[in-house]
């Protein structure tokens, strides 16, 4: 088992109190698995991704453990976590367009970064990976400003995976791109997995349609908790959680079944994570909520590898 997350709790310290952005999340990933992480904006996807590699100054690890390849990640300890970063866990950030130092030639920046991590640059390997994502080798001699958005995106992909990390977190890497570029990036990510550059991958997006193309497994989050996790086809064809169903209904196209449906967002808005309500967090928007939903529904494996947190699933 490659990644094992147990009851992870990560809060943001704010003046108004703790924002419970990640409130008891448990799941696991296999080697070679691409896990699509979906959910409305603000449900905690980025928080989960950052918790696995580098928490920002306002995040606090309140409990739970993360194990990667049998070793516990010291996610709350910034310094000890450094050994794992880049080598074991790596990140393609949401802000790929501005992730590279604007005043360094890309090749030089990569070399300096690798040297600072005690690794040496294998130029042949780097160039073959550039070819794989269809970047000319000359980009190494350019400044980031000279690259287009899509090129920067692919360059960051190559940099982040250069040390063959076990786990790669790709946070909204396609959001800023047009549809055809999105597909290309998704294909490149699958290519990286197939080539063994990364063992497993968490692909974060609010776009369920795209996730279903690239992910083996899809995990749906709602208000800091997991709602449903299942193989991609099961999520798309046989969703069990009311939230997943509504999310799929609001999509323009995922399979023929949904094309005639009216395009609509989900009515209402998610609860505040400052003081989330007890019981099922989806209750206020759930069309089939009942008495029992005042109690928090546990994550249950209703079919092999199909987990749902809902009393009525």
């Amino acid at each position, binding site marked *: 088992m490659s990644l094992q997350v147990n009851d992870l709790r990560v809060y943001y310290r704010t003046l108004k109190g703790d924002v419970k952005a990640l409130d008891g999340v448990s799941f696991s990933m296999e080697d070679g698995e691409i896990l699509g992480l979906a959910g409305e904006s603000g449900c905690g996807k980025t928080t989960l991704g950052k918790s696995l590699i580098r928490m920002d100054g306002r995040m606090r690890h309140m409990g739970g453990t993360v194990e990667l390849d049998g070793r516990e990640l010291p996610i709350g300890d910034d310094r000890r976590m450094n*050994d794992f970063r880049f080598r074991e866990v790596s990140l393609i950030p949401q802000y790929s367009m501005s*992730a590279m*130092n604007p005043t360094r030639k890309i090749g030089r920046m990569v070399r300096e*970064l690798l040297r*600072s991590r005690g690794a040496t640059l294998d130029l042949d390997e780097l160039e073959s990976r550039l070819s794989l994502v269809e970047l000319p080798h000359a980009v190494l001699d350019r400044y980031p*400003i000279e690259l287009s958005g899509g090129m920067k995106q692919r360059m960051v992909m190559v940099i982040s995976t250069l040390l063959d990390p076990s786990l790669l977190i790709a946070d909204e890497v396609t959001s800023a791109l047009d549809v055809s570029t999105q597909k290309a990036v998704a294909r490149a990510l699958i290519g990286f997995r197939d080539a063994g550059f990364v063992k497993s991958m968490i692909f974060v997006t609010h776009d369920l349609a795209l996730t279903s193309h690239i992910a083996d497994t899809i995990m749906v989050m709602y208000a800091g908790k997991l709602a449903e996790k299942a193989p991609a086809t099961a999520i798309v064809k046989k969703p069990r959680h009311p939230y997943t169903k509504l999310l799929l209904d609001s999509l323009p196209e995922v399979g023929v079944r949904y094309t005639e449906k009216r395009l609509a967002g989900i009515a209402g808005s998610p609860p505040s994570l400052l003081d989330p309500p007890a019981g099922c967090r989806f209750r206020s928007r759930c069309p089939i909520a009942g008495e029992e939903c005042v109690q928090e529904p546990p994550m249950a494996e209703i079919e092999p590898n199909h987990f749902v947190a809902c009393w009525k699933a």
Partner: protein
Amino acid sequence: MRRYFGRKLLVYGLTFFVAVTINWMIPRFMPGDPVSSMVARTGASNPAAAETMRVYYTNLFGFDQPLWKQYVNFWGALFQGDFGISIWVFPTPVTEVILGAVPYTLGLMIPSVLLSWVVGNWFGAYAARRKVLDNTLLPVGYVLTAMPYMWLAVLLAWGLGVVAGWFPVAGGYSFSMQPSWSWEFILDLLHHWVLPFASLFLVALGGWAIGMRNMIIYELESDYSNYLAALGAPQRLIRRYAFRNAVLPQITGLALQLGVLVAGALVTEIVFSYPGLGSLILKAIQNQDFFLLQGTFLFIVLGVLIANFIIDIVYVVVDPRTRAGMAGAAA
């Protein structure tokens, strides 16, 4: 690259042209007759000299010639370094008077501007990573920048000059000395230089330190810093990048501040009666020495433009993006 500098040179040339033209226009379109009023004021006690001056000025202004010709002649004289004759120290050429004062102003300005910039940036970058230093240095920096040049100069002159008696408070060197290349004179020169230098240095220092501190903090929170940190890069590397990128706007800031710095230096010279261009301006005004005033202003404009151009060049050398952009534009 050539196009970039060509455009810059054009702008500077145009600025200089406008400055010279305005300078030329002022005495000619001023109400009243500047020549007779100048001659009347200075030459009253000496009728012979007054007559010489009247003839000289009338010829120089060439009032009998058409305006456009006067204008062309003015430029011609300018290119020969001829700013006319000073009234205050008649009959010394204005150019000579100015050249006598320039070393003092440059000797004050260049070290104070460069040192305050370097030390301020270094301080600011250092403070940005140390809470204690940040909490103490920052308020001091704000007080320093908020202080008018004149104020700090007067404060220093009073405290270290008059009360403590460590430094002389007026002049470029002691009255009892003759300028020479002796150690004694150079030491005396330095002794007089300390207070005006210190007041210029200190006022500018605070601004640079605060600017750098804020820039560094901004850079350290930027996306590329976060990305490097997420990949486990050591703080050393991240800070090196941040420092380099933070220095760039500070160079632009230097270009923008140059006018303020020159004005500050002129005022400081006046406070310390330091024999540079600032004191010259004061003397020229007091003595209605129009040519001296005109010449000094032109000289300062020229100096600021040259300094700006040098900063432009430095910026292109330091910021690779401008070079990359230019190469792209040329290709």
